[in-house]
């Protein structure tokens, strides 16, 4: 029983910690692109990579202040969105999907390559760039605090607090935008692109704006993650994370302001609980070692996400909060 409570506490911390914020921001960005505008961005992790490394490279390698690094990361994300959008947004949805997934994988390979080592430090990545940010915390960062049965270091708590503030601001922004005429145009593009075009709207520009906005949110997510872990390693930005964010979005409900946030919290809670729970079962010998070893558990989360994505899309594409009619799930 005590073990079970511990597992719940660990899972709760994961659902509220910086990983959940990371996925929430990625998913809010995807929500703008996929949920509202119907764009298939499968390379959201590339924006996060640029955000994280924007700070890491600026601070660790170029010696710039932390906040300049934030700006560098955001500018890089905008540039990437423009580069990706220019050729693909006039084409059918799956072209953007292929181009973005290819870019995400390509950027990761580039950042971890030997030739990029002078800038990104290759596969080992960069660290020691979040000191300026952690120092801003209004409480002692090396002490530990207890919250709802979970234990946090001061630094973790500070990253989480700031991160959730960013999430709330992002949600407010999305809420306001989607109530505005701009948001209504975006949603109608999702429903019927040709109808919007016949009303004289420049569909291409609207899609591009959605792509850029989503990319910026993704970059912010990457920054929270990099600051939270205190390091930026190219292999942390595996492409599977994009699909974790998609799973979070679809679980919570696409085209809902709070869908991606709730989805991320719930998803991370489930994944961490499954993780800890499975480890417990293996340690206690309930699951035989031959069937599943403790080192395999890390892989299980992606297996679960894969099954979850499939089941959700087949049986409940609107997720927890979504409106079935609003969930754009057809090709155009």
């Amino acid at each position, binding site marked *: 029983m005590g073990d079970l409570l511990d597992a719940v506490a660990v899972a709760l911390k994961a659902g509220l910690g910086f990983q959940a914020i990371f996925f929430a921001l990625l998913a809010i960005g995807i929500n703008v692109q996929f949920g509202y505008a119907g764009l*298939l961005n*499968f390379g959201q992790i590339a924006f996060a990579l640029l955000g994280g490394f924007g700070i890491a490279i600026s601070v660790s390698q170029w010696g710039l202040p932390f906040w300049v690094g934030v700006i560098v990361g955001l500018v890089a994300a905008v540039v990437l969105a423009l580069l*990706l959008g*220019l*050729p*693909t947004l*006039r*084409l*059918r*949805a*799956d*072209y953007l*999907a*292929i*181009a973005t*997934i*290819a*870019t995400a*994988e*390509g950027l990761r*390979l*580039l950042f*971890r*390559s*030997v*030739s*990029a080592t002078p800038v990104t430090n290759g*596969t080992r990545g960069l660290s020691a760039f979040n000191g300026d940010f952690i120092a801003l915390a209004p409480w002692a960062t090396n002490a530990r605090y207890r919250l709802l049965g979970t234990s946090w270091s001061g630094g973790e708590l500070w990253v989480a607090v700031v991160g959730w503030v960013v999430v709330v601001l992002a949600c407010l922004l999305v809420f306001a935008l989607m109530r505005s005429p701009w948001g209504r145009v975006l949603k109608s593009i999702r429903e019927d692109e040709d109808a919007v075009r016949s009303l004289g709207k420049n569909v291409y520009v609207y899609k591009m704006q959605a792509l850029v906005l989503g990319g910026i949110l993704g970059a912010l997510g990457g920054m929270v993650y990099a600051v939270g872990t205190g390091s930026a390693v190219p292999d942390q930005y595996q492409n*599977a994370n994009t*699909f974790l964010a*998609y*799973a979070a979005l*679809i679980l919570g409900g696409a085209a809902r302001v709070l869908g991606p946030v709730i989805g991320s919290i719930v998803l991370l809670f489930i994944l961490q609980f499954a993780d800890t729970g499975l480890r417990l079962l293996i340690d206690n010998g309930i699951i035989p070692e031959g069937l*599943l070893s403790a080192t*395999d558990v890390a*892989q*299980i989360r*992606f*297996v679960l*996400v*894969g*099954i*979850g*994505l*499939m089941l959700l*899309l*087949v049986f409940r*594409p609107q997720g927890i909060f979504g409106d079935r009619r609003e969930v*754009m*799930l*057809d*090709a*155009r």
Partner: protein
Amino acid sequence: MTHPSATAGPPGRSRSAIRPGPGTAHRVMLRLLLVLVAATGLAVLVPGIASAEGEQVIGTLQTSRSGPIEGVEVTVTTAAGDEVDSVASDEDGRWAVELPGPGDYVVTIDDGDLPEGVELAGADNRAVTVAEGRREPVIIGLEDGSRGGGGGTVRAVQLLVDGIRFGLLIAMAAVGLSLIFGTTGLTNFAHGELVTIGAIVAWYVNVSGGVPLIPATIIAMIAGAGIGALNELALWRPLRRRGTGLIAALVVSIGLSLLLRYLIQIVYGGRSSPYQVATGRAVDYGAFTLTNRALVSIVVSVVVLVLVALMLQRTKIGKAMRAVSDNRDLAASSGIDVNRVILVVWMMGGALAALGGVLLGLSDQVQWDMGFRLLLLMFAGVTLGGLGTAYGALVGSLIVGVFVQMSTLVIPNDVKYVGGLLLLIVILVIRPQGILGSRARIG
């Protein structure tokens, strides 16, 4: 040039010592990069030199293209700079220097003595620490010089040949992807896993089961066809019946890809291991060299792809595939059993992907995510050729394969896939419908 390890193997296996590229490094490079090898085991074969007591440093100077290199002066000095001895390599390229005792030494070779076309890959010296009573093997990296001026065309031809091999391999895996897209409209992100599963089934049959690779490959292809059929019958046909949209199906295929990929990692592990086949040396064909297995890979790919083309062109089921791909409703109304055609496409795609996986495993070893990495190049090939057309996939994949290999002339080896992905984006700008695609398809 520092090597991660001083133990030496045959020249062909020492790639990682020179180019620490993470998995993406390609076997071509092994043939181009020639390594001075010295192994304790080899040294025993040389009577009179290696039989002496006490500490020694030993080595062999050879490259796979030039053979053993004779008459290169090797000088050994102590860490303080005092010369211990200086010897020349014998007709087998071997050399050995007696040391006064254990300690740190520096081995230097005179690069002026190297034959034309062979250059140092890194520094001309190497520091070693010799323990008491040890014969310490020393590796100094050598290159055949084709990366510099002069040998450029030779290397380009070599890369072209290897690019064709790689492109044919991509094409084989991509034909199924393209036909599935053509017949069902599904962008199947789980196609890479069919490649991986094929490679891994063959690996288990070959390495754990002790079956030779050719029957193992046939078993893997049958398994691939079975998995393709299972995909269609258990998942995609019911989904089509439910009226699931194409974008939803696409995300489902991503879920399937994640599920399979990480299940494979749990079962197979994160290692990369080779098949059990004889490792032949590269055979010289004048402008390029090719190992026998690479040659077999090319021949098999060409034969299989020609068979596929003949099938599409001549047989009833092949014509039906093209008809369904072209216009599904029209095909159905002309009496073609669309579901049966799609099932055959899935089985064929699965078998071809499995074969592609085995060939990829043969050149790059078997890894849990090999298919996913190949998937992106398959997409590049299929998009370049024209989504949904079988021949487009073939032409596009060939171009992508050659482009990826040839790009290593100008970009480092470990980012060569990035070049392929960049090509994909350039295609989307210039000619989004691809070489053989029709404008109507891009929406």
